[in-house]
């Protein structure tokens, strides 16, 4: 399908750009590691504490990293007015959005996979006990952030206070997804037995993803054409 081909071209272009310059990846990775370090000063992380909120801690770091990555997503189209070329091309708004969201997802997921071992080292956690389930849950949470974040990146790209407005708008909307993924990650990170409401959180996260992906794809054209 043409639309998917367009989206793939955009995603490939974004990723190629990013890996060429490594601006975003380097700064976001360093930032994430620094935050992980700072948290270790905030409290003394005993194994019990980590079992209680390790997932939450990790996702706060990922949320901050996410804001940095998605902010770049449409901001990178501003120099040389490349956004105009993209919008006037046959690619639909939906394809543009989807391609960029996928690129953000890949970058974010990569950063998360690097942060996991760092987290394991700093806080003495064997995080690989339910590895595949953990990665699956991370992927779901990351898609929620990439999807909503990229959409809001498009929404705020022309605003004066973009760097501030984007996280302020994005985080409250993402809370259902963040909450669910924090709960799920918490359980899977420390290999605990699954509590009875595990299925509820999972369903919520998946439902959130379906709902907001649909909304974003449908409304992308509306916000990209001024």
């Amino acid at each position, binding site marked *: 399908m043409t639309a998917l*081909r*367009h989206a793939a*071209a*955009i995603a*490939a*272009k974004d990723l*190629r*750009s990013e890996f*060429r*310059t490594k601006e975003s990846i380097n700064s976001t990775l360093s930032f994430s590691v620094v935050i992980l370090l700072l948290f270790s000063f905030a409290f003394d992380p005993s194994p019990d504490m980590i079992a209680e909120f390790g997932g939450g801690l990790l996702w706060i770091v990922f949320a901050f990293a996410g804001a940095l990555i998605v902010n770049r997503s449409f901001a990178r189209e501003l*120099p*040389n*007015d*490349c956004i*105009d*070329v*993209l*919008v*006037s*091309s*046959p*690619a*639909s708004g939906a394809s543009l959005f989807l391609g960029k969201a996928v690129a953000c997802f890949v970058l974010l997921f990569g950063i998360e996979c690097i942060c996991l071992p760092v987290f394991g080292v700093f806080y003495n956690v064997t995080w690989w006990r339910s590895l595949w389930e953990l990665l699956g849950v991370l992927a779901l949470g990351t898609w929620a952030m990439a999807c909503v974040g990229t959409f809001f990146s498009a929404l705020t790209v022309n605003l004066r206070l973009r760097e501030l407005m984007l996280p302020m708008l994005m985080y409250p909307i993402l809370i259902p997804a963040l909450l669910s993924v924090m709960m799920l990650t918490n359980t899977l990170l420390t290999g605990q037995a699954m509590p009875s409401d595990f299925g509820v959180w999972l369903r919520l996260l998946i439902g959130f993803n379906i709902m907001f992906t649909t909304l974003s794809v449908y409304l992308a*054209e509306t916000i990209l*054409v*001024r």
Partner: protein
Amino acid sequence: MSAPAVAAAGVWKYFGDYPALRDVRFDLQAGECLALLGRNGAGKTTLLRILGGLSGASKGGVLIDGGEVRASGTRARIGWLGHSIGLYDELTARENLRTFGTLYGVTAATVSDWLERVNLAHVADSPVREYSRGMRQRLAVARAFLHGPRLLLLDEPLTSLDDKAIALLQGLLTAARAGGATIILSTHQIREAMELASRVALLDRGRLMHFGERTAQMLDDPGYLYRTYGGEA
């Protein structure tokens, strides 16, 4: 009688209080080249953006070959060259053209072909960031013409081009017109642009003051249009 290549019908565009375009209406047939004149702020860029599908009109609309701009298929026939070059500095010339080419369904062979035509084949695999200004301009031209557009929209294309690039662009535009493409370029009375044009439109504060043939008098006397049809030079 087939639909005109470009048909603007009662186009208004508001930015808040301010009407950037007021009741602009004209028809342009295929193969024509329209020079869009007006001082800064007259609405030339606004009109071009609506024609290119980058903006929507507040009232009225435009039809390209009888079709809506935001309909799929219409935009595949449009080539856009705005104020900025519309290229990614960190990617190479080839990567830039291949990326945009994919969006327009253009093959890799065509891309290589165009790199030859604009004399950039020898540096095709260096990032655009390293190019000189003239090279960037030539690559931007290649990007706009890559997919053989039927409608070319150029926003003050000659203002920032050097001699070689101007010659290149003139050649491409003439060839495109000969092939039946329609061209709309906004300009500040630059002779080279006026020579290319078959028709002229004068915008003043959003209003279309004149739309008609490009006469020889307009070529020789830069102030003629403004004096005759109102607005300021």
